[in-house]
């Protein structure tokens, strides 16, 4: 069933394949993020209640959504790394972690900046904000555990276990505003319902969500490729790559 995947267990093939993905992810994400952000910040109408401060949604929602998707991706990689002992999966875990941590931080930061004018406070210990903060700590914990061991394989095992255990937090973040009453509002965009946002404001947000996802992927691939080159520095294919003969 997964025979077609086997060639990519070879680092050289993975490096080349990820190079192709990186190109498209990087450029589409970069261009899309510029279009979405400029459109959102400059060319959408102001909100009827919040005025212009609502525009932070164009950074906040994409980073927040993708901090969770990134974690899910990291946990899946950790699961594959643990069960199938696939070392590229371990490398993917540590490739995603810092990028996801930055997204989580940005989500918290933009949320705080928006919270002050809208709610009247930068921070409140409600379920949504607290669980997102825990997500940041989980990301940092995965990074710390990975590098805490002399032997990288032990580090990868420990980090993978934390990554998998922490995945419980993802549905908690998502449903925190449904299960408990909180200051944070419910979801504006849901898969099955009509978005609770006017169409004129919605498009740039959707573009930014997709683009930020591509950028997350691009940074992950960049880190993964670097890691591959460093781990296999002694192999002839790395030499070829570094000398520019692909």
């Amino acid at each position, binding site marked *: 069933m997964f025979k077609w995947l086997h060639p990519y267990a070879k680092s050289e093939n993975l490096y080349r394949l990820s190079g192709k993905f990186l190109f498209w992810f990087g450029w589409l994400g970069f261009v899309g993020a510029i279009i979405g952000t400029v459109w959102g910040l400059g060319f959408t109408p102001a909100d009827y209640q919040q005025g212009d401060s609502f525009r932070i*949604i164009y950074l906040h929602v994409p980073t927040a959504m993708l901090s969770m998707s990134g974690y899910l991706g990291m946990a899946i990689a950790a699961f594959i790394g643990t069960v199938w002992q696939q070392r590229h999966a371990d490398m993917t875990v540590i490739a995603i972690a810092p990028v996801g941590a930055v997204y989580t931080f940005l989500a918290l930061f933009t949320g705080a900046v928006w919270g002050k004018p*809208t709610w009247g406070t930068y921070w409140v210990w409600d379920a949504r904000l607290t669980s997102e903060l825990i997500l940041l700590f989980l990301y940092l914990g995965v990074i710390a555990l990975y590098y805490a061991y002399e032997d990288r394989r032990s580090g990868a095992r420990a980090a993978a276990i934390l990554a998998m255990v922490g*995945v419980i937090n993802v549905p908690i973040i998502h449903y925190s505003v449904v299960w408990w009453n909180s200051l944070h509002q419910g979801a504006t965009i849901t898969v099955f319902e009509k978005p609770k946002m*006017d169409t004129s404001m919605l498009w740039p947000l959707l573009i930014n969500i997709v683009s930020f996802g591509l950028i997350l992927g691009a940074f992950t691939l960049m880190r993964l490729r670097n890691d591959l080159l460093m781990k296999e520095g002694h192999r002839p294919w790395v030499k070829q790559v570094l000398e520019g003969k692909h």
Partner: protein
Amino acid sequence: MNPRRKKRLATTLAVLVGLGVAVGFVLFSMTQNIDLFYTPSEIINGKNETGVKPQIGQRLRIGGMVLPGSVRRDQNSLKVSFDLFDQGPLVTIEYDGILPDLFREGQGIVANGVLTGPTTIKAHEVLAKHDEEYMPPDVAEAVGKVHPNGVGNKAAEQTGGAY
């Protein structure tokens, strides 16, 4: 799949499912501590699940909608009082301070304070709760979101529209 992988798969899944169930129970049992606020009907009737009523003198948060027409401002100070509702019962909030921009009648708020009487709360912090709807002013007007005398319309409020 070879037996070793199968074993690892089973162990990992068992641990994750077990942990998930455990966390689920913990969160479920802590529901009333995780809830950010009481609603007005919970102040009067007790929490939905447990029936626990807050004591007078207890510090708590309350969340609800500001009853239109209930906002009373003191002419010489920042003192303000208003009523909160959710489904039926009203709870009066007394507050001395600056209200957030989004505070308006009919809007949800969360207040942090002390229960001073069966249905009165002296708040030391009032936060505006925003809903998940976003729309431009003209659309809001078209669907009747904007209050006739300018309440709920930021632009009108800034240019002197009053409560």
